């Protein structure tokens, strides 16, 4: 029923790439939750293997620039990379969906004002927005989360608004209103349930971009600060290992790529024709 509201025809069948994606994403979430319990060492422990040690049985990902076990660093970092990005994405999408539906249902000046504000925010490249915010407010965790969330609200808003406009114009909404249902009921019971599937796809894509934004910021040294480290910060602190081909540089970067690629493939598998627009 909701399918006619969405322009792209969707396949029910989940492709092989999509199945692989589901398995990988579950693995990543488990890693973020249980990572620190699985880690053989604590994140700050210096082990007896020298700095930038290569891969070995005792230290599967080698050691970092201070001689700490990389596997443990990665497992601890999963909380920041997966967890922080997840919280920021949830906030961005909740804000975007609420404002988007408000715009679509209210129309009029609410719609114009919100639309203008979204236009302005979306015209600031995400990483540049992050730089301005960090310059002004520093790099504490709440600032990073809010910054990423606000940066991605406009995209979510536009997507949700377009969906809600489509659905709002359909007959069953007309029927509900003619029945005398209140706006809150129409939004909650009629519009929202019909938006869920495309919104999930949108959530996944946005999560990928938030991960890339936050790890990019950490890579620049302007994200999560030492002694804590997400995977982007791990790449940064071990960057000198590049001249010794140390696994400490590559492993965290590859970890980010595997995370983002698996989520992207999952979405691609679900939605068949993934939305070409990225923002």
């Amino acid at each position, binding site marked *: 029923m909701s399918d006619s509201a969405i322009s792209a025809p969707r396949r029910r069948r989940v492709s092989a*790439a999509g199945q692989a994606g589901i398995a990988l994403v579950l693995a990543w979430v488990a890693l973020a939750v249980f990572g620190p319990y699985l880690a053989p060492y604590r994140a700050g422990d210096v082990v007896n293997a020298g700095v930038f040690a290569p891969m070995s049985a005792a230290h599967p990902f080698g050691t970092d620039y201070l001689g700490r076990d990389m596997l443990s660093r990665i497992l601890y970092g999963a909380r920041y990379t997966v967890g922080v990005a997840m919280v920021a994405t949830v906030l961005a999408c909740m804000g975007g969906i609420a404002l988007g539906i408000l715009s679509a249902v209210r129309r009029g000046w609410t719609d114009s004002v919100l639309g*203008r*504000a979204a*236009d*302005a*925010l979306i*015209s*600031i*490249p*995400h*990483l*540049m927005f992050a*730089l*301005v*915010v*960090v*310059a*002004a*407010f520093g790099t504490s965790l709440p600032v990073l989360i809010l910054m990423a969330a606000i940066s991605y609200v406009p995209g979510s808003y536009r997507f949700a608004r377009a969906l809600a406009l489509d659905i709002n114009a359909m007959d069953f909404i007309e029927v509900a209103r003619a029945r005398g249902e209140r706006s809150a009921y129409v939004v909650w019971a009629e519009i929202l349930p019909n938006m869920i599937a495309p919104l999930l796809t949108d959530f996944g894509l946005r999560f*990928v971009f938030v991960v*890339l934004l936050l*790890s*990019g910021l950490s*890579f*620049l*040294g*302007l994200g999560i600060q030492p002694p804590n480290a997400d995977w*982007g910060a791990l*790449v940064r602190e071990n*960057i000198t290992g*590049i*001249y010794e*081909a140390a696994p400490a*540089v*590559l492993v965290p*970067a*590859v970890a*980010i*790529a595997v995370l*983002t*690629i698996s*989520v*992207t*493939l999952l979405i*691609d598998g679900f939605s068949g*024709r*993934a939305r*070409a627009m*990225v923002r």
Partner: protein
Amino acid sequence: MLMLGMIVRRVLGGLLTLLLVSVVVFVGTNILPGDATEAILGQSVSPEAVAGLRKALGLDLPAHERYLRWLAGLLSGDPGVSLINRLPVAQLIGPRFANSLLLTALTAAVAVPLALLIGITTAIWRGTLYDRVANVTAVSLVAVPEFLLATVGVMLFAVQLHWVSALAKPSIGSFTEALQNFTLPVLTLCFAVTAQMARMTRAALLGVLDSSYIEMARLKGVRPARLVLHHALRNAAGPIANAVALNLSSLLGGVIIVEVIFSYPGLAKLAVDAVETRDMPLVQACAMIFCATFMLLVLVADVCSILSNPRLRTR
């Protein structure tokens, strides 16, 4: 006439948005109490010295007056003075901006033809193994962080093979020197942009290929390659130009990472350094240049779609 009206409206809308962006940037960087005097003088100075400097910098004025002054300065090409080395911001930005333009222009020169080639060939051979492999590769590449591509590139080609340098200098004295300096940064930037651009080019072509006049031509026995190149490409030119401009705008994020990795003296590296030293006038000016460039590309994308829509070509 209709078309001209739409373009004019789009340009005016863009200018209004840019004005809003300038408010966001100004308010964002001025909202906290600690101001420039602290950054210049340090915290243990006499109140008289602080007051004097505040007056000299115009910080004693109310916020809206400072905003108007700043905006007027931006428009007249004088966005203030750096807090760190006291040089005019315009003087710091000038050469850096040119370097960044060089890097992005070289990237565009490689990425755009490559993306068109891949997009068009995948549309011709749609559904084949080549198409599917290209699609999965493109989807994956969009999700890869630039610093992974860059570190792998440096490890392979700079550290192991010694083919190119791990640092990029903005000089193209000779062909080999240009290759040495620009191969890695340009390739790093190309990957994600090319992938996304190729996907959108393919999608634009497929959108046209689904229309009935193409069905007609197909039934008449026109070969797939001719169908795409001769019949579909012309009508997909607008959406494709739109895709090219939109994706070039996404380069602006990648440039920030790449310039830092390769220590390339461009505008983005300057902005990151300014954030580290909290040099607000410099941060503001860099942010505004980035946003203006970004909006210009989006505007070009919009105008391309308007110009290519035959329904608007009425007289």
